[in-house]
């Protein structure tokens, strides 16, 4: 009896409904790429860059929509181009002038946002743009799923290629500059990956909360591991777990799906904050015996 109840609760929603399977596939693919990206953003003290970049992408997607309607390709391309332009300009200004990266990013993303809003209001439509710009995790069609999967694949492959320079630059940027000139290109490639994953996130999660599936798992990973690789693995796993549990929460309680996923990730974060092995609050208060070497 309990077994069938467990089945009904945990498995049946996905077995019975195709849209739930699609949603799960989409969020898992998203977690796969976003976890690693989030960890590197966090290690480079760029945790808020994701959020700023998300705002920079939005106008691009809006322009894509205005030019060719509800077309996945146009909106993705528009968002991608807007994000990349902002990332490139930011990197250029930060590396060539006195302005630091955060200030440069702030100026360019605000400009992008303002430009986007202007273009939309010039065009004069008042279609519910927020509904259109963001996809819906419950309405992922083949094309969107494919896009998210391709983006996750590209992310993992490129990350593998730039992994060494990226890690070294996180840990010791001065050393990195003295031994190699790969730091700059690696950083740009990384920023492009951030944009790619945010675009995926828009389609999958349906809100600005796309940034949440990037940053919350990364912060969770930080409380359980010191090693970067392990941190990435934990982040990815907790992102995937949040996706699955969030969809279940939405299915059983009727909460909107996108926020439900992020709320579950938030709950995991609070648990990690309290009980995490690396610097968790409880751990700090009661250090206990040192079991590890």
């Amino acid at each position: 009896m309990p077994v069938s109840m467990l089945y009904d609760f945990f498995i049946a929603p996905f077995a019975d409904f195709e849209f739930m399977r699609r949603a799960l596939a989409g969020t898992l693919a998203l977690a796969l790429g976003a976890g690693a990206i989030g960890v590197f953003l966090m290690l480079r003290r760029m945790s808020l860059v994701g959020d700023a970049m998300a705002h920079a992408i939005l106008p691009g997607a809006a322009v894509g929509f205005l030019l060719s309607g509800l077309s996945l390709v146009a909106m993705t391309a528009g968002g991608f181009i807007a994000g990349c332009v902002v990332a490139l300009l930011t990197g250029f200004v930060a590396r060539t002038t006195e302005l630091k990266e955060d200030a440069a990013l702030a100026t360019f993303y605000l400009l992008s946002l303002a430009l986007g809003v202007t273009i939309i209001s010039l065009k004069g439509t008042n279609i519910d743009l927020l509904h259109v710009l963001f996809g819906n995790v419950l309405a992922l069609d083949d094309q969107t799923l494919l896009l998210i999967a391709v983006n996750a694949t590209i992310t993992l492959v490129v990350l593998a290629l730039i992994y060494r320079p990226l890690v070294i630059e996180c840990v010791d940027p001065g050393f990195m500059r003295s031994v190699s000139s790969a730091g700059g290109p690696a950083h740009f490639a990384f920023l492009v990956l951030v944009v790619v994953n945010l675009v995926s996130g828009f389609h999958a999660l349906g809100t600005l909360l796309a940034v949440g599936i990037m940053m919350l798992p990364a912060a969770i990973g930080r409380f359980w591991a010191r090693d970067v690789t392990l941190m990435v693995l934990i982040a990815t796993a907790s992102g995937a777990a949040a996706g699955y549990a969030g969809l279940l929460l939405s299915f059983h309680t009727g909460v909107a799906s996108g926020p439900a996923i992020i709320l579950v990730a938030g709950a995991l974060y609070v648990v990690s904050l309290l009980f995490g092995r690396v610097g968790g609050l409880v751990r700090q208060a009661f250090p206990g015996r040192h079991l590890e070497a």
Partner: protein
Amino acid sequence: MLTRRRTIFAMACAALLPGAPARAQDKAQHVIASFSILGDLVKNVGGERLQVGTLVGPNGNAHVYAPSPGDAKSVADAKLVFVNGLGFEGWIDRLVKASGTKAPIIVATKGIKPRERAGAGGHDHDHGPADPHAWQSVANAKVYVANIRDALIAADPAGKDVYAANAAAYLAKLDALEQEVRDVIAKVPADRRRVITSHAAFGYFQDAYGVRFTAPQGVSTEAEASAKDVAAIITQIKKQKIPAVFLENVTDPRLVQQIARETGAKIGGTLYSDALTDAKGDATTYIDLIRHNLKQLAAALES
């Protein structure tokens, strides 16, 4: 010289103040309607005597509209402001206050018995308990027209005959339209009169003409659907063998497409709910809108 300058000054003043009394007689009255469908009804009653502006234009969504300063200005300049009421334009009170207009606010749904909302998920929004989409029943549109006629006559007694004649002619057209709707629906077998739409805007149509509508969202387009709602709808379509799923011109079609994919229900064309289409579309007037919806429904439900 002096007199000429004065004349120019006076002309400039007159141009700047569209409601200036000296020019009110020979110039068309400027009135505002909150959204495109209401605007069309007002135009039909007002005819040549009115210059009708709308705040939420064709294809716009009045549920989540954000008024611009230009809107505040046109409200301030208007002689009358027509709104739907029943909580449809949640933003109108603030706009009216901000514009400082002296124009009377005419609620077009006055006298219509509001329908209680029955959204699929039972969501609550800032809409209040009434379903605002009263114009989806032609009988209600006739009440709108009567309210508009009375308000116009009260505001502009000189045009009484014109307004009364226009309203009578238009009401006759609406009578014919209503008969047409009833005739077409009567041809659809009773057990096939079931439809899914992406936003519960057709409650009054359902009550008046006996076609059952179900929606994955509540009445407003603001709420995001949950997995629970979508699952409930899919189960319902499969169980009741609902033949058709419809899209609307104001909400995200992707969700409805997913539901159709999963259930095998036919995707009907677009049903227009809250807005007319622009000149390129095929529902530029209220009568066209109802005819268009009727045609789409008939095509999808007759098998």
